[in-house]
């Protein structure tokens, strides 16, 4: 049986800004979302009282809370604070899996102490070293720990003991399971399934038949079963960058200019961060003004601006709409698979019957 702590900083970016600028105390603030069409990264609890939420477009937030103070995003600042927090984590266990700058899983199975006490101590140290509050969830697995950290937020902690898992899950709304979004929740509700307890009444064959592979996973998740280990070194699978534009781009030339800029960023990042990795393919993402997203990719071992431009031209044609967002990126080849990376040198190529998007 594992002992997992999920630590989650409370409104991290907003909290850091409030610490840096005490004059903002008591005001509703949002980080990000200040530009014409940006979205909010984080907001403080005062702003949340007005119904402001993260990922909400700035204009919508302003409608709900006219006095909202918008602050620009200062990633360097958050990253520096995040490093302080991670250093604290590592004093308790080497098994730390960061999920983002402001949350992480810790496996403290072998720490030889009560996980509850460790969580309380870590939170106290975070407060004294950064003046920021954090919440923690303590449970026998990652899924439960993550749900639990939300239970006494902000500045609190909650434990689900192994013997409590059954009762805890029975009452838990299905929406709380990772991967069950509002759509699925709605579909479940239509069938009278609201809690994980309701979901537990379905047999594994029924789940598998209705939801496929995901059904099998769901069968275990709704029982509070999750075997995933805390993985300290998650391997980066891709590298990308994207930009939402101040004004929609309407011509291919504008898009190409933007894609060149993004492509250069990715190439710089590749050189700076992961020069040793082998690349499997390059891709371009386009989000149109109707918010639909399309991706075009190709097999490619050495990406160039030229390749992204070609991909862009194909993706751009898919809808006659202005472009809201563009992204470029690469996916890495698995290091342990030995793919034939010079099959491109063949002199002949098998012709295809169907166009690429047909079959």
């Amino acid at each position, binding site marked *: 049986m594992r002992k997992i702590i999920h630590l989650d900083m409370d409104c991290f970016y907003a909290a850091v800004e409030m610490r840096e600028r005490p004059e903002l105390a008591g005001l509703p603030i949002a980080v990000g979302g200040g530009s014409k069409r940006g979205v909010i990264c984080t907001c403080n609890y005062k702003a949340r009282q007005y119904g402001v939420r993260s990922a909400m477009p700035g204009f919508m937030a302003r409608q709900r809370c006219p006095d909202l103070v918008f602050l620009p995003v200062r990633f360097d600042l958050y990253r520096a604070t995040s490093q302080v927090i991670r250093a604290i984590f590592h004093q308790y266990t080497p098994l730390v899996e960061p999920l983002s700058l402001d949350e992480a899983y810790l496996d403290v199975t072998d720490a030889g102490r009560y996980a509850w006490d460790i969580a309380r101590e870590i939170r106290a140290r975070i407060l004294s070293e950064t003046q920021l509050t954090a919440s923690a969830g303590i449970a026998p697995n990652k899924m439960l720990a993550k749900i639990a950290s939300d239970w006494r937020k902000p500045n609190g902690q909650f434990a689900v003991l192994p013997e409590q898992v059954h009762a805890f899950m029975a009452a838990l709304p299905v929406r709380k399971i990772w991967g069950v979004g509002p759509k699925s929740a709605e579909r479940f509700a239509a069938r009278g399934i609201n809690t994980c307890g309701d979901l537990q009444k379905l047999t594994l064959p029924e789940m598998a038949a209705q939801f496929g592979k995901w059904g099998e996973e769901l069968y275990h998740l709704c029982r509070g079963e999750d075997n995933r280990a805390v993985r300290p070194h998650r391997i980066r699978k891709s590298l990308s960058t994207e930009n939402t534009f101040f004004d929609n781009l309407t011509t291919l030339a504008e898009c190409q200019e933007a894609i060149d800029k993004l492509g250069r960023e990715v190439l710089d990042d590749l050189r700076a961060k992961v020069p040793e990795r082998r690349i499997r393919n390059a891709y371009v993402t386009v989000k149109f003004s109707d918010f639909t997203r399309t991706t075009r990719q190709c097999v490619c071992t050495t990406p160039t601006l030229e390749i992204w431009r070609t991909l862009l031209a194909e993706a751009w044609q898919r809808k006659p709409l202005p472009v809201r967002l563009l992204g470029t990126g690469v996916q890495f080849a698995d290091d342990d698979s030995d793919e034939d990376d010079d099959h491109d040198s*063949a*002199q*002949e190529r*098998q*012709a295809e019957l169907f166009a690429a998007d047909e*079959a």
Partner: protein
Amino acid sequence: MKVILTKEALVAALGVVANVVSNRSPLPILGNALIKAEDGKLTIATTDLAIGVRAVMPAEVVEAGATTLPAKRFFSIIRELPAPEVTLTVDDKHSATIESGSAYYKIMGMPQEEFPPFPRLDGTRAFSLKQAQLKDMLRRTAYAISTEESRYVLNGVLLSFKENQLTVVATDGRRLAMVQEPLEFPEESAIDVILPTAAVNELQRVLKGDEPVGISIGQNQIAFDLGHIYMFSKLVDGNYPEYRRVIPAAATGRIVLERELLLSAVRRVALLANEKSLSVKLSFGNNNLEISANTPDIGEAKETLTISYTDRAFAIAFNPDYLMDPLKNLDGDQVFFDFTNEYEPGVLKYNRPFTYVIMPMRATPSGAK
């Protein structure tokens, strides 16, 4: 439950259902076979949820009943039994005893209630044709099915019931095989479905003879009733590509070739086909066809066939497997090869309703995409 039956009947039935057992499933019950005795019959069924197969055989039913037994283990026991007669007894705790001659086995089963029931196809479309006919149609097309999982709509054959014809199509996007046979059914039953590869394979194994096979198609599912064998399968969810568009309307030339000769010549030449590009070249000249292959730094192979051809000389390159697959699976002595030029797809036909479209290899400058 207690039944007595011949080992021969049991082995034959197991041969039908054994492939569908899923041993790696998270559901232990799917590793079991349903065994049911009633009305002078023994029924054995297996399923992996995507496909299910049921076989019925005559048996002396001493006491009716049902259970499920670990399939692979049960099957391997039955195969090894020493005597021609088998007695199978199952108590109410699902403990099964198998006796045959001097051999005695006891294995533990699981309650039959846990075994997933076979779906009922309500409001279905129904079709019927000879088993051998369907088998033959699958044999002449199935080799062209795509094995690339990402192209999932191609991971099966298209069964198109339209205009009093059954059309079977398989393609991997580089070659396409199609057969068409007349079939009578009410026009409102017309439908296109994609039968997944696994079902195609199982079906080819069990279809036999002039007895009819009843086909029922329901929502996302299809069932085949062969009388003593019943099989259901999920259908591939998706739209099959517009295959008729890629069949060349007319070719400029036709060459008649001896099927066996062409097959063996390609097979020999392919031994030196480039491992990377995998191609053999067909060069059509004055009344002869040269088939050749070469791999830099390894060597080359060449073979010449005499044909009747006096038109423009040209060469076209193909993946040798794509050439050989239909030649292996057709009957008939002669095949017709229709072509337009070295860039357009070639079409293989013979004296029955059959069309095989094959895309050539195209020369590309080194390193180009």
